[in-house]
């Protein structure tokens, strides 16, 4: 599929997802996967600010511990923190040993094989609520078109977080952010339980959770909550066979 077709398919898919009772983490996960496909990047993730302004990871194209670690570091420093603070995109930032800008983030990103990083602000009526983070394993520049596409996907992510709320007062927006962040915590708690019960890694645990949620038309967060509350056990979840069903 060329990029234009892929983008149109993505918009249709997201429009289809953004119906009444969608799961925000699931939609954002779809979005990060589409980022990787539509732009020449190797990993993508969404970080959101808590009502107190602390950045926290909510969705990623990879749930591997190593990629999540790169988001965890950015609770303190990194391209997302700078992008969030300034409300400005950081594009084509080449990572190098000599780069002292992010002393915690850069060495870990390099060790994982990443060579370039981008971060696009998620903005809503003058307030920045988070950032879309893109990683590449090779240097080279994103074109202006790439950046436009990435910013467009970041804007869609922003809309997804608002969950149809028409009024956007401070209380409503903070409630939506708090819910999205708390959903991610529920999913991490459930991943730990799945991992321990079935002996899989965290990446597989997430895929299994997501596959079961989709197979049974259940929200990812709702299913994770049932696991934590022990109304369903990890071994009862459908096996993940390598492809997450639509």
């Amino acid at each position, binding site marked *: 599929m060329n990029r234009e077709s892929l983008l149109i398919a993505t918009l249709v898919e997201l429009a289809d997802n953004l119906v009444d009772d969608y799961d925000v983490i699931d939609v954002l996960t779809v979005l990060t996967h589409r980022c990787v496909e539509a732009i020449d990047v190797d990993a993508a993730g969404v970080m959101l600010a*808590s*009502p*107190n*302004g*602390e*950045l*926290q*990871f909510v969705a990623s194209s990879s749930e591997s*511990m190593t990629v*999540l670690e790169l*988001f*965890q570091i950015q*609770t*303190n420093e990194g391209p997302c923190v700078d992008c969030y603070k300034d409300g400005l995109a950081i594009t084509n930032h080449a990572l190098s040993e000599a780069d002292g800008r992010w002393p915690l983030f850069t060495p870990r990103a390099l060790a994982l094989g990443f060579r370039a990083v981008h971060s696009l602000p998620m903005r809503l009526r003058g*307030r920045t609520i988070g950032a879309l983070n893109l990683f590449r394993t090779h240097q080279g520049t994103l074109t202006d078109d790439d950046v436009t596409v990435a910013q467009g996907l970041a804007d869609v992510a922003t809309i997804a977080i608002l969950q149809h709320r028409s009024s956007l*007062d*401070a*209380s409503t927006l*903070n*409630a939506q952010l*708090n*819910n999205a*962040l*708390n959903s*991610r*915590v*529920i999913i*991490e*708690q*459930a*991943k*730990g*339980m*799945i*991992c*321990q*019960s079935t002996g899989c890694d*965290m990446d597989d645990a997430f895929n299994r959770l997501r596959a079961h949620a989709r197979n049974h038309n259940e929200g990812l967060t709702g299913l*994770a*909550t049932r696991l*934590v*509350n*022990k109304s369903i056990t*990890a071994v009862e979840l459908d096996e993940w066979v390598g492809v997450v069903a639509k």
Partner: protein
Amino acid sequence: MNVQRLLDIYAIMERHRREGAEGYALCAVAAEFTVFDGAGIALIDNDELTSLCTSDHASGALMDLELALGEGPMVDASRGDASEDTDLRQTTSPEWSIYRSEAVALGARAVFAYPIRLGAIRFGALSFYRISAGPLDAQESSDAYLMASVIGRAILAEQSGGTLVGFADELHGESALDFRVHQAAGMLAIQGALSVKDALVLLRAHAFGVGLSLADLAERMVTCTTRFDSNTGEWIDNMAEEHDER
């Protein structure tokens, strides 16, 4: 992140402690830190909401009212998301209609309540009232969420036998939302056949006992370096020097 507001909470806690207040005097701290006229905290104990503390006479009366009626913003927040009524005298919704008229009689004009939760773990809710009607601005709303988050961590710290000093260090230091901690709590819930909440309490207590940060212990759990044996109630650590230390 907005570290200053966290430090403000800590300074208020510290002063209350010096002045000889019982425990963390959490409700008094919450009322002083925020713009509200009074605060109350209710905790879930065996599926039932019970009052932990209230900051003034009216908050106490509002708490008693809500617990007696089983309806109101705090009851809603303890089960679901944040809940508010910014003008009790103008709202005509049938929801909490008895609560609403009684609350007005007690002098409240607006009420706000926030869940105290960590992922799928629900501790209870933090509620506030104001003697004047009107919505919150962004800073006021953010402060309320921050306070609810700090109270959740304080309750957890207290249940795992921590000290105020240890808790203050944590407020200064690590992130409230380290994904490894939540994964480790999920793993420990399965290893120890515990609720995820009890697992988190045990995890914190053990980290404190062996002098590790919560994040470091969680890292050992998720890399399978440390695990808990529910048959013997012992922690098993694959790192030899850990045994030597004991």
